[in-house]
Each structure stands twice: as C-alpha cells, then as structure tokens.
C-alpha cells in the first residue's frame, strides 16, 4: 500500500507538517521511510486510523517537537516521526 499515492488526496497532510492549533482525523499510518518499530510504537501510543488529533504545542526552538492530543492523552513527538501519520484536516 503506497502512502505517497494516498497523500495526493486533497486535504490529507502529514502530521509533521501541521501547525499549532490545527486538528483533524488520522486516515493512515505508516510509510516506507519509517521502521515497523516506530509505526507500531506510534500505534500503541494511540495513533490509529479514525482517531481525532490536535496539535496543542510546539517547541520554542524551531517548532520541533510537537505535543498532540490523541485518544485522550497528550503525546510529545518529533516532527520526523509525526510524518508517519497522515491526517485529514478539519475544515
């Protein structure tokens, strides 16, 4: 399953590209540049398809890492790993 193909859908962005305050729905997780371990860890932390997500904070130094709210908890992650998560932005 190719992530790049689905990314062409309008409105779909990678979580790592989101700004503070933006929110949406996780549509897909994975991608060839990410190890199975990273993807599974993300899933175990609650990053699963269908979950709502919101970027709450970003680091004062270069805006990376970010803090997101997902499945009832706050999770900090670097933008690089966040790019494994594809989000459909809220209108």
């Amino acid at each position, binding site marked *: 399953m190719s992530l790049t193909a689905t990314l062409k859908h309008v409105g779909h962005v990678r979580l790592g590209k989101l700004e503070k305050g933006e929110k949406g729905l996780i549509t897909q997780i994975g991608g060839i540049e990410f190890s199975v371990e990273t993807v*599974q860890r993300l899933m175990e932390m609650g990053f699963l398809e269908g979950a709502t997500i919101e970027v709450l904070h970003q680091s004062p130094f270069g805006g990376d890492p970010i803090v997101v709210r997902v499945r009832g908890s706050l999770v900090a992650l670097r933008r690089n790993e966040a790019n494994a998560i594809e989000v459909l932005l809220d209108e």
Partner: protein
Amino acid sequence: MSKLITQIKKTYDVALAGNPNCGKTALFNAITGGNAKVGNYPGVTVERKVGRALLPDGSTLKVLDLPGTYSLNSRTLDEEITRNILLGKHALEPMPKALIAVVDATNLERGLGFVLELRELGIPLVLALNMVDLAKSRGQVLNLEILSRELGIPVVPTVAIQKEGLEKLLAEVCLLKSDLKPAVLIDWKKPDQNQIRSRFAEVDRILSLSIVQATQPALWTERLDQIVLHPVLGTCLLVLVLAFVFQAIFSWAEIPKGFIESGVSWLGDQVGLWLGKGPLESLIVDGMIAGVGAVLVFLPQILILFAFILVLEDSGYMARAAFLMDKLMGKVGLHGRAFIPLLSSFACAIPGIMSTRTIEQRKDRLTTILVAPLMTCSARLPVYSLLIAAFIPNMSVWGPIRLQGLVMFGLYFAGVVIALLMAVIFRMSLFRGPKPNLLMELPTYKLPRLKNIGLGLMERSVLFLKKAGTVILSVSIVLWFLVSYPKAPVGAHEAAISYSYAGIVGHAIEPLFRPLGFNWKIVVALIPGLAAREVMIGSLATVYAVEGRENGIALLGQRLSEDWSIATALSLLVWYVLACQCFSTLAVTRRETNSWRWPAFMFLYMTSLAYLGSFTIYHLAVKMGLGKI
C-alpha cells in the same frame, strides 16, 4: 519442617503490569506498605522491585513490580524483560501466578490496549482501575459490571495514593488463587499492525458499551500547559527551575556535607586519641573512617537531587522539561531527558549518573552516562582554584574581566563542549543507529506525594550505599594501604609517601607522564587522587611537605609555582578537565550499567583524551615560551 511447608504454601506470586504513569508504583507501594526490595535484573539496567502484601487472614503475597511498558513488543529492555517474565522465558524470574493489570482510569482508551495484550497470555488477571477519583472528577461515569463482563476479568476501582480499593483488589487476587491453574506456555508472536488495530478496535467496542458518560479533557493540565509549554513563559520557567535545582545541589548540599566531613574527622580524632598513634590507628582512622566518610559525603547531593527529580517526575513537569529541551539535546543525539543528569554532573557525576534512569532507551542512557563525568564537578573546583591562583597572573583582560576568571570559565566551558562532542562521537560510532525517537506521553499534572518521594529517596540511598558504597569504601582502604606502606626508612629525606607503594608506582610510571610535563611528585599525588579529585591537593601537600602547616594551601601554591613551569600547570589543569580521576564515578557506573565493561571503557577513553589534551597543551605552551620554571 511442616511449618516451613505451610509458609511456602502461603506465599503466592502476583505481578503488577501497566503503562508508565498509570500509578503502578504508587499502587505497589500501597499494597506492599513500602517494604519493597529494589535491585537489578542480572546483567541489565532494568530495575527489579519485589515486596510483600499482607492479607486479612495473615498470609502474605509476594508481589513483583514489572517495569512500566506500553506493550510486550520488546523494543526496549524493559519491555523485553516484562515479556520474557510473563511468557515464562526469563532465566531467573519465574512466571508470576497471577497478574494485576493497572490502568489509569482517566486514560482507558490507551491503557486497555495493553490489558487486552496481557489477557492473551493466559495468566489469571485482575484489572486495577487506578485513579478513579480523578476520572470521576472529570465527569467519567463507567458501568463496571459491563466493563468486567466484556473484558472477561474482575475489575476493581482503586485510588492507590489514598489506599482505596486495595482490600478488594487483594481479595480478587485471592479468588483467582482458588481457581488457579498453572498458566500454559503459549506460543507468543509479535503482533503485526493489524493485530494492534483490532486490539484497539476491541477497546473502543468495550468502552462504547461500558462508558455511560465520557471523561472530559484534563482542563487543569491543558490550562497549565498554556503557561508551562508557552514559548516564552515556559522557557523562562524551565530556566528558573533548572537554576534552582543546580543552585540547590551546588550550595545546599555543602552544609550537610560540611557536617559529615567534620563529623568524620571528629570521630577519627577521637578514635585516634583512644588508640594512640600506630598502624592500627592509621588503618582505622585514615583507612576505614576516612573511607566511610568518602562514601557518606555524596549522600546530601544524591538526596537533594533525587528529591527534585522525584517531585518533577511525579508532578508531571519532567516530561514537559524534556520536551522543551529536546531540540537542544537532540542536536548532539541525546534524549531530552539527558539534561538533568548532565546538569547535575556539574555538582557531582555520581548523582548525575544515577539519575540517567529516567532515560528509557539503552543507547541514550549509556551515551549520557559516558559523557557525564566530563562536566566539571565541584570536586575539581579546589584543584582549579589552587593551580589558577598559583600560576595565572591576576591581571585584567578587559575591564572587570580578569585572566584568572577567564581561565576558570574556559575550563568549565571546555568540559561542556567536549562532553557534547563526545556524545556526538559515541552516537556515530559505538551507539550508531537510527536517531532515537522522542515519543513520550505528557502525563496529567498531579500533586507529588510526600510518602512516595520519601520511599523513592530511601530506595536510592540504600542502593547507593550498598552497591556503590561498598566499592568506594574498599578502594579507599586499598588506596590508604598503597600510600601508607611500606614506611619510609629511618633518616629519609623525601616525604614518606614517596617510599610507599604509591610512590614506587608513581616513580615507575613517571616516564610515561614526562611528555605531559608532569614530574614524579605530580604522578605520585595523582594516585591517591583517584579516590576523589580534591584529595590530590592533600597529596601534593604531603609530597611537597607543607602538610599541616599554617597557610598550607597558600604555601603549597608558592612551592608549586617555584617547582613547575606554567606549561606543566596548564597541562595538569587540562588533565583534570578530561581524566576520570574519580574511582567513585567508576563504581557508580558499574552499579548503573551492571558490568565492569562500561566503567573500564569510561576510564580508558577519558584517560586517553586527557593524555592527548595535556600533551597538546603542554607542547603548545612550551612553544610559546611557558616551559621555563
């Protein structure tokens, strides 16, 4: 005999498993009454905690606290050990007979995923729904019967910090006991992504049935985060907190440290008077009592630092601080959590290295441990002060900035730069691999509990005294022997130390240090200086025979400036920045990494670095004409 058998029959193993931050430690403390024994699993750094829970009928349960993990996937060492124990594959820790799965009631959406994973193991299981008070205050209404029915396991609501629900929890564990059948070894396979998906889909199904009213977002946490994680306010707060912690370990610890030092020397004097001069007196006073003092003197700093760490950790601030620091630490390939150990190492590397426990990934943790002793600890300060005062002219460089201060700053700065540089190098060589990810939960803010902090401090102190302390004490006694024997011959000209084993070794290896500009007196003084860096001053005073005189230090400085060139002094300063002149650091590294391999490596790399650095500086200085005495 029969009594023994009934005793064994009564003990019953139950293990606690759950996500980090679910209050598992508090629950463990509550059911065991804080009588835990802490140790390590052999060969690894993962902590092993066991205790006993007293049941109403007078029998006890042996309780094991498993490391907090998000899954059994074995990416981290914690997970691997938890999984091996739960699958009955751990060599020394048998599979527990029952499990208490602990979940944070305010975070069921994630916590229950791990419970379902545990359920597949076939070990009898009870669910402790912890922190139900917080969940209730956030509006959660839960149908426990449905939850228990859908999960297929008993569910007990608990509030660990108020000891609520504990009796019921233990009663449920005992009920498991009655219909206990030996758990079958199952053929466990790493779940694939679809299995994780379906596991969480099952969580959603169960929750949709059992949740009557959903939990509101943690309002207070999110409000506080508006300040704590604010780009400007949050950074200011972080700087304030760090400055406060640093100030505390640097200066508050000095007061109890002074008490300990004067107490130990008073005790030594008393024992000395009572025994009279002699070899036995020397062994007891200079060897043993001084050795115990060398161990105890670290306790104030360890206690103060860990009090802060436990408060920061329990309150939920630590994860936020790690988040704020992550960008900076990430540049040298370290985790955001590495900053507390590194900062603490400015006071002393011992508590610094002990505090690397908060770093999850093994590679991150080892890198941090290896570079921590390069941070300028307070024991280097007396050596720096002595040499700078004796050799660096007290002239103004620019306005109020004087050369002596500038050199002092340079030494501190060099330590930091080289520590960070070495972190980059270790990351690219020894601990190569993908950049560690941050991925860290920010727990909700909670008021830290005095009792849990007290227990945590007890654990740390006992571990330090028992494990590192014994090594430090025995090495101190060995060093005492080396500097005391054999005695100087009658009518000797040199100081007694130069006839001792330390003196003999010093003379023997002196040619090795000649390229650094060190004379044999320096080399001899370096040997007892291994016990603690500042001891070097006393040893120099002994070798230069200014010991015990009035204005000893000033006199020593004067003697040194008559005997050494500036190049030699600079070379020794650089040696002190880089060398691992501290046996206690090696002992605590051995304790924290559970092998002699890492302290050996630490000693070798730091000594090589120091040799290279001192050699370069000495020859540069000689070229600049500073080689004359």
